[in-house]
């Protein structure tokens, strides 16, 4: 009896091991097996965008029944972790989307394969929708996003302010006057909401580093990507930090905005808000809502560049098909579909011509022109994850009242140590 129990135990254990192993084995290794290719996307929480992605895959599958593409959607918050774990386990899908600033990091880590997409296809794209690292293209996007200064026209005219344009944005001094006069008007509890309620790291870098670049500073010295000294703690960066802190100290912007600063703007709590194209759909709820370019703090007005883009994994056994899939999907029609379904900028002029509102002179055109003229991509270096977390924390500390010089010197020391300990990430 004892022996049989033991046998049963042993068998059960052995069986469990075998089953687990088999289950592991049957997971499509490398994202591709006989049936076709797997595609991962971050937009499980965004049904409109996912629908377009699925439509592209369905069109492809109808034309290529032997090389079908299977779409798997993840929630955005868990997406990067999923990719990193999959890469560690060598189970990356063939095609995946990536947030633009992470592309160099993943390319450096060997997750991504350089794209073989003809140059004439890429030159039609908005420059910031093509992800490059060390002269090779690793990713390409169907759309772009843009920042904007949303304002109430009545608040500006009451303050006697000029309405700025892309050709003639506000200067730093003009903007300072506008802020002072709107606040003095006393009609709005918040003069200019920076939108600091977002606890996620990336908004802090995407949203506020363009101000720093407009002052003439940057996250890292882009001539060699080997140091942040001077650009992140020089006089210009200090001027930026003092200005940011001043917005809070002078009572123009709350130290911590509410979770949805744009809703506050729509509800009349703020006269101006720093936000992005993703909120432009709600702008029509404000009778006299405007979207304006950011002020020029000396080095020209700047906005952030780079949104979600598509890449091919280096472990894909059938890279040629994956590239073909991306190449054939980069049509004006698909880009137009994205721009129609949600508030994004179509990635090429051809696509913009297809979507109502995006033609020259159209009501949405501002964002396309703004992106073309003002967008600065976040530093394309594999060290970006460290750069962005360090910069975001420094900005949070500055907004919370930390000494600008001390905070920025510390950030530079941290970034330079990280760069050095990584052999400057191959630069």
């Amino acid at each position, binding site marked *: 009896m*004892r022996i049989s129990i*033991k046998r049963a*135990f042993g068998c059960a*254990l052995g069986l469990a091991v075998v089953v687990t192993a088999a289950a592991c084995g049957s997971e499509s290794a490398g994202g591709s097996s006989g049936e076709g290719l797997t595609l991962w996307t971050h937009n499980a929480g965004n049904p409109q965008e996912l629908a377009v992605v699925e439509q592209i895959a369905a069109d492809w599958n109808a034309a290529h029944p032997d090389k079908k593409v299977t779409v798997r959607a993840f929630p955005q918050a868990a997406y990067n972790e999923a990719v990193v774990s999959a890469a560690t386990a060598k189970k990356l899908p063939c095609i995946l989307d990536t947030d633009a600033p992470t592309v160099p990091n993943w390319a450096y*880590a060997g997750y991504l394969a350089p794209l073989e997409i003809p140059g004439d296809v890429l030159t039609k794209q908005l420059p910031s929708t093509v992800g490059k690292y060390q002269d090779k293209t690793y990713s390409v996007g169907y759309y772009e996003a843009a920042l904007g200064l949303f304002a109430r026209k009545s608040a500006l005219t009451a303050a006697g302010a000029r309405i700025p344009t892309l050709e003639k944005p506000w200067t730093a001094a003009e903007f300072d006057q506008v802020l002072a006069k709107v606040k003095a008007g006393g009609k709005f509890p918040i003069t200019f909401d920076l939108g600091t309620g977002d606890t996620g790291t990336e908004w802090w870098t995407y949203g506020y580093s363009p101000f720093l670049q407009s002052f003439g500073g940057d996250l890292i010295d882009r001539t060699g990507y080997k140091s942040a000294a001077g650009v992140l703690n020089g006089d210009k960066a200090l001027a930026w930090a003092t200005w940011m802190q001043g917005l809070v100290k002078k009572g123009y912007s709350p130290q911590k905005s509410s979770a949805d600063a744009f809703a506050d703007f729509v509800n009349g709590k703020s006269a101006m808000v720093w936000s992005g194209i993703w909120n432009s759909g709600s702008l029509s709820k404000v009778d006299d809502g405007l979207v304006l370019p950011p002020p020029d703090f000396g080095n020209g007005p700047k906005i952030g560049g780079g949104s979600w883009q598509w890449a091919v994994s280096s472990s894909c056994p059938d890279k040629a098909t994956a590239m073909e899939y991306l190449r054939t999907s980069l049509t004006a029609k698909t880009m137009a579909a994205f721009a129609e379904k949600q508030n994004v900028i179509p990635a090429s002029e051809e696509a913009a011509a297809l979507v109502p509102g995006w033609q020259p002179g159209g009501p949405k055109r501002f964002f396309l022109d703004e992106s073309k003229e003002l967008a600065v991509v976040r530093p394309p270096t594999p060290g970006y*994850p460290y750069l962005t*977390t360090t910069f975001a924390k420094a900005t949070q500390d500055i907004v919370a009242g*930390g000494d600008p010089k001390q905070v920025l010197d510390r950030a530079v020391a941290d970034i330079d140590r*990280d760069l050095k300990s990584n052999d400057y990430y191959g630069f």
Partner: protein
Amino acid sequence: MAVSTSPVRTVAPAKPTSGRARRRQHGQGRTGLLMVAPAGVLLVLFFVVPVALGFALSFTNARLISPKPLEFVGLDNFARLLDDPVFWTSLRNTLLFAAVIVPAQSGFALLLALLMNVKMRGTNLFRTLYFIPVVTSIVVVSILWRFMYQPDGLVNSVLHWMTGNVVRIDWLNDTSTALPAIMFMSVWQAVGFHMVIWLAGLQTIPAELYEAAEIDGAGRWHQFRYITWPGLRSTRTFILVTITIAALSLFTQIHVMTGGGPLDATSTVVFQAVRVGYQQQQTAYASAISLVFFLLVLAISLIQRRLTRERNA
């Protein structure tokens, strides 16, 4: 596997007298081993291996994403730790949190338990009420309290109404109030759990002792001092150790409510380790922080054990 075999050996009889018994013991040992195997394998796989890996990694330059091979860097990470102001602030915050939470939470829980322990109608209702926060997800509780602590949130509204003054405290964005605010909320959330444990301890004390004490003319305070308090000896140790460890590993509230801010006023050791290890991809440095944290918790637990043992003897 050494871990899984040791309990089996201690259970087995010390000295088998005959060969048959030895064989039987041997058989028992193997069955025991098999029975322990599922738990043992999981424990080794998900506890022993990661802990050992963490220790080993803290002496290397491991990072989350890098094509570079792992390199042994000796004590570099620990040297960096000594020079890292965020680490010292985090350590100070963590110790301060524990120093306040341990007495406040256990004391308040005991008070509630004593109140709950009377035989009266409606105590079950109160027990449930105090226990509700414990069974609510800490993330949900943190989000709710974040709203309540907003400048125009519930907490400030109540303060206005009670005091009639116009003082506005931005609880979570002020370096002097952020950590106390999180302490208060943490006690509120976890006190029910320890109340139930105190209550269980209280109910093991025989009622005859109190009856006898009453006959002897002992008052409420003397009953507590000479019957209740000694009767709760083992409960006390358990509560002390569990609250201390929970307090030292403060993370979720920080992650959800403040992100370590403002100006690191609420950064804790565990929060810093997670931030550095995942967001900043510095696996090795995070391992070093975790190793120091482990040693800290170990040291504090050993001291606590020693202190409680001495008092017991």
